């Protein structure tokens, strides 16, 4: 368990963050640029001292201002992957990787040099200087360097933010591999919800230095506070389920609560867990299941909440049995279909509007 409760004031900016997250696992710290995300992880790393607070990782106290205790950054054994990589320009890749490894305690060793180079595909450029690497390669070296310092906790500060889309797709699978293969708790700072969707177990939503919501990814996806950060267009429930079948058509069947979704899931195996986001703008509400439509999914549910949005739009929460989805429709549509809270309803989803992410 990672418990954090810190406060810091710098001029007009005030940070006040408290959360508890299970370990190991990936905690996403999500918020807009300038909301205090980097300040928060600088505090966790020990690079910044909060005015008051305490941080505890499993049975290790990292910081407790009430007791006057502060473990210096160099003795925290917290790996930090910086947004700008901060590789040492005067050392080659091998020496960069070894830098933290040499300074880490001899045991326990959770991961070795060969394993890291293999996991991150670093072997081809061990003898090269950081400045001769591409952005994605540099970020992989930075990840490897942090991992080899045998961290108790790994902090990742928007490791993909400085990369273009192609480079991002190159690095993301490595992050997924690390999540699956290693049991190092991670804190992943991001302002891209897709990264959270693909990687995180737990989300802490930060707005102007304050935690506005936290919980599992599916819980947080339903929270209205998220809308202000990701924008109206990106609002949508995240659902997790098990792949129960892969049809001859190539569509996979994902069991969710009492229902199921059919969606493209390339490479999915029966029995594996997957996560999918249903964007509110893509969902259609109907009073009967789809007939004579190209829509592949009809899920039965009940309206549990209706929230007014701008331009006569309504954000409707539908309980589909053990899970909830969000749909954005016009107020006129609700009136003409005579839908209100408590109404039974069918949710229609185009299979191709969804993309599943393996867990």
């Amino acid at each position, binding site marked *: 368990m990672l418990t954090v409760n810190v406060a810091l004031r710098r001029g007009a900016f005030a940070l006040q963050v408290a959360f508890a997250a299970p370990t190991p696992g990936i905690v996403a710290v999500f918020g807009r640029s300038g909301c205090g995300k980097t300040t928060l992880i600088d505090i966790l790393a020990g690079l910044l001292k909060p005015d008051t607070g305490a941080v505890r990782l499993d049975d290790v106290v990292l910081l407790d201002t009430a007791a006057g205790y502060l473990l210096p950054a160099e003795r925290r054994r917290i790996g930090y992957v910086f947004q700008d990589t*901060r590789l040492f320009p005067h050392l080659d890749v091998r020496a960069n990787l070894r830098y933290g490894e040499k300074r880490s305690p001899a045991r326990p060793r959770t991961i070795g040099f060969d394993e890291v180079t293999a996991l991150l595909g670093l072997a081809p450029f061990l003898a090269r200087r950081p400045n001769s690497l591409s952005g994605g390669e540099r970020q992989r070296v930075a990840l490897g360097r942090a991992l080899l310092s045998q961290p108790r906790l790994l902090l990742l500060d928007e490791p993909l933010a400085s990369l273009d889309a192609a480079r991002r797709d190159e690095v993301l699978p490595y992050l997924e591999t690390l999540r699956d293969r290693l049991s190092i708790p991670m804190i992943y700072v991001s302002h891209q919800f897709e990264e959270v969707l693909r990687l995180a177990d737990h989300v802490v939503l930060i707005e102007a230095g304050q935690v506005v919501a936290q919980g599992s990814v599916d819980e947080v996806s339903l929270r209205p506070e998220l809308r202000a950060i990701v924008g109206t267009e990106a609002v949508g429930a995240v659902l997790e389920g098990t792949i129960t079948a892969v049809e001859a058509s190539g569509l996979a069947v994902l069991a969710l609560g009492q229902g199921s979704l059919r969606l493209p899931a390339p490479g999915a195996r029966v029995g594996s867990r997957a996560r999918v986001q249903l964007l509110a703008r893509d969902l259609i509400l109907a009073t009967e299941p789809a007939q004579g439509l190209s829509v592949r999914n009809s899920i039965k549910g009940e309206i549990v909440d209706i929230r007014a949005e701008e331009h006569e739009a309504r954000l409707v929460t539908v309980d589909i049995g053990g899970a909830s989805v969000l749909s954005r429709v016009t107020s006129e549509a609700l009136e003409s279909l005579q839908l209100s809270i408590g109404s039974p309803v069918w949710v229609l989803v185009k299979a191709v509007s969804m993309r599943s992410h393996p867990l």
Partner: protein
Amino acid sequence: MHDMLGSAELDALRLSLEVATGSVLCSLPVAILVAWLLTRTRFPGRVLFDAVVHLPLVLPPVAVGYLLLLLFGTRGPIGRWLYANFGIELAFSAKGAALATAVMTFPLMVRAIRISLDNVDRGLEAAARTLGAGALDRFATITLPLMLPGILAGIVMAFAAALGEFGAVITFVANIPGETRTLPLALYTAIQTPSGDALAARLAILSISLGLAGLLFAEWLARYIRRRLGR
């Protein structure tokens, strides 16, 4: 070489190189420390300290030499203490010439090192910290190597300037052949001598060649290191 340069020139050249080397070696660690204090720390009187460090740049060199004579002369407080405890005599010796030269070239060296320290990315030091490196470790493995171009530029600049130091040297340690008569002092003596024209010309050409070589070497070195550091 011996056909062109007489023993007077060779003596002066050898002495100049010795004095310049000694002065650079003595001032380097202090210059790094002072550059660090001025760049990375805040303490009361920092501005005054900064001014004092740069004072030799604006003072008449003769004044610096005179101050050294007062402090480090045989009867000066520091000079007497050094002689009593270590048997070191600075006045009228090559060691004294190195000290006077070190004081005069100190601001040049501090300036070059300071600029390079300013350019060291503090983020890299923070990264080293998260990787388990303590303060001294970080300085030795990250900060110092990254400062290297500035340090070497400072050394070469100070060395080139040291070869030409005149006023402070002649005031503090006088003009003793073979002991304190460096190139500029030998040049000055030759000019003062009725038949010294040819010697003066040879010494002047020697000084110009050394200075030029020093500056060109500094430039080449800076480029080489920038390339090595990958910038």
